[in-house]
């Protein structure tokens, strides 16, 4: 319990640090480019929206810095991130909400698939050490996990998108389609997801297999596994309940954290495929000097990572009794 409380404290501290960093970033920058941007929009936005933007970027010089800070914290707590300038007049929160749906669907699902697939192959490779799977999978996966995923993405676009014209390679759905729960639209979305998802899967599955295999080899050498064998337990029981159950602990931490990085880690893959997720949105915000959207996205990504790390810590505390006794 103390362990979890400590980690929760760390979570709050880091969250505060990230929010504060987000507050000071535009103010620290030479000339505060955001000021010029807000000034440019003064004629178009009015009233409450303008005030919100001004507090985010410290344009409203009438307030002192501490007062701005308190105001800013209040806005953040209420989820008020201002108005997006590029997607005017949508609010930043609504823009982010649509983007996160795409990212979770593409990268989230791919990460979970990669974890399950990779861990499974790792278990088999370690269980039949020196067998067929163990001699093929690790060397191949070392190579695939060393290739940058955006490069794989670009090659996919070149081969399957442009040369063979098998699959669509840009965007999340056909622009002629109207988003709905109809069959054709769902097929369309799935078709658009195949190339980026495969590129991600190929390059991320290796890490899970390799670490799982190595952890598993270590646990298989432990005395309690030998004990289980001596007791004459079924192999499948030893394999999953004794060896894999313990070997998966370090990977579980990694998995929870990589779920956090889902939000940020796929910036490049979304950029390559013009996929309308959070990462692509961030780059678009940068290109169009949409500072409110940019800052909200950075904060969102940071929070996602922090939450994932906290969850990873809690999961470890639950599955690994040693953390509970330590400290």
């Amino acid at each position, binding site marked *: 319990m103390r362990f979890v409380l400590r980690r929760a404290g760390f979570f709050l501290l880091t969250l505060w640090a990230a929010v504060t960093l987000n507050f000071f970033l535009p103010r620290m920058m030479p000339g505060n480019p955001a000021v010029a941007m807000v000034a440019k929009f003064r004629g178009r936005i009015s009233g409450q929206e303008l005030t919100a933007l001004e507090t985010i970027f410290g344009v409203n010089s009438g307030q002192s810095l501490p007062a701005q800070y308190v105001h800013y914290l209040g806005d953040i707590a209420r989820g008020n991130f201002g108005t997006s300038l590029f997607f005017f007049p949508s609010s930043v929160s609504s823009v982010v909400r649509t983007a996160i749906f795409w990212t979770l669907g593409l990268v989230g699902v791919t990460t979970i698939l990669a974890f399950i697939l990779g861990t499974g192959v790792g278990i088999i490779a370690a269980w039949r050490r020196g067998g067929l799977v163990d001699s093929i999978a690790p060397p191949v996966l070392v190579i695939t996990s060393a290739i940058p995923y955006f490069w794989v993405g670009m090659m996919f676009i070149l081969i399957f998108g442009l040369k063979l014209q098998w699959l669509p390679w840009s965007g999340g759905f056909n622009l002629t389609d109207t988003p709905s729960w109809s069959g054709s639209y769902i097929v369309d979305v799935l078709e658009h997801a195949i190339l980026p998802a495969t590129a991600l899967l190929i390059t991320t599955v290796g890490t899970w297999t390799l670490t799982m295999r190595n952890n598993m080899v270590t646990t298989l050498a432990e005395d309690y596994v030998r004990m289980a064998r001596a007791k004459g337990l079924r192999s499948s029981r030893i394999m999953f309940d004794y060896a894999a159950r313990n070997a998966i602990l370090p990977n579980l931490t990694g998995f929870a954290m990589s779920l956090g990085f889902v939000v*940020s880690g796929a910036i490049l893959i979304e950029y390559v495929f013009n996929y309308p997720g959070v990462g692509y949105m961030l780059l678009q915000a940068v290109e169009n000097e949409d500072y409110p959207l940019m800052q909200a996205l950075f904060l969102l*990504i940071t929070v996602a990572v922090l939450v994932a790390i906290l969850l990873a810590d809690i999961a470890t505390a639950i599955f690994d009794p*040693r953390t509970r006794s330590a400290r």
Partner: protein
Amino acid sequence: MRFLKAVTRSGKATAGAILLAVFVVLALFPGLFAKDSPTAEAYDRNLGASAQHLFGTTGLGQDTFAQAVYGTRQVMEIAFGAGLASTIIAAAIGVAAAYLGGFWDGALNLFTDVVLVIPLFPLLIVIAAYVHNSGTLVLIAVLTFTGWSYTARSFGRRPCHCATGTSWPRRRSAASERRTSSSSRSCRR
């Protein structure tokens, strides 16, 4: 000389040193390898790779190979600059934490952990968006500011868990596990 001996003794170190040397030479004397100017728009646009243009040409008719060769210098400047600066900061903070001990150990390590978990790549993008026309120095500063925490973590820690003789590594928090896991995994038996 001792340095040279250390490098030649290990095959891996030799391979790495040769690779590095290639890029150092490229960075120092780009003119020897690329005959074209990287900015001259002297050729047809969007040519494929050929003997004339090893990497083809850009949409503006510049030689891509020349751009890659001339770009090496800036990349090397940034890499060495950021690497050196962040190692100095990391050494100062990591060693200070381990040496002073007690309150400072906790405080400095906590500070390092906080910086460690803030996602780097988006932060880099956001900072770069605010600093327009960022030169080499700005890039070095940003990379240093965001990159020192990982190294600092390894300064303050004992080199390897195996030294304690237990096969179970001491459980660390997820935050420090995140980027140090690969290094600790290699020493796990």
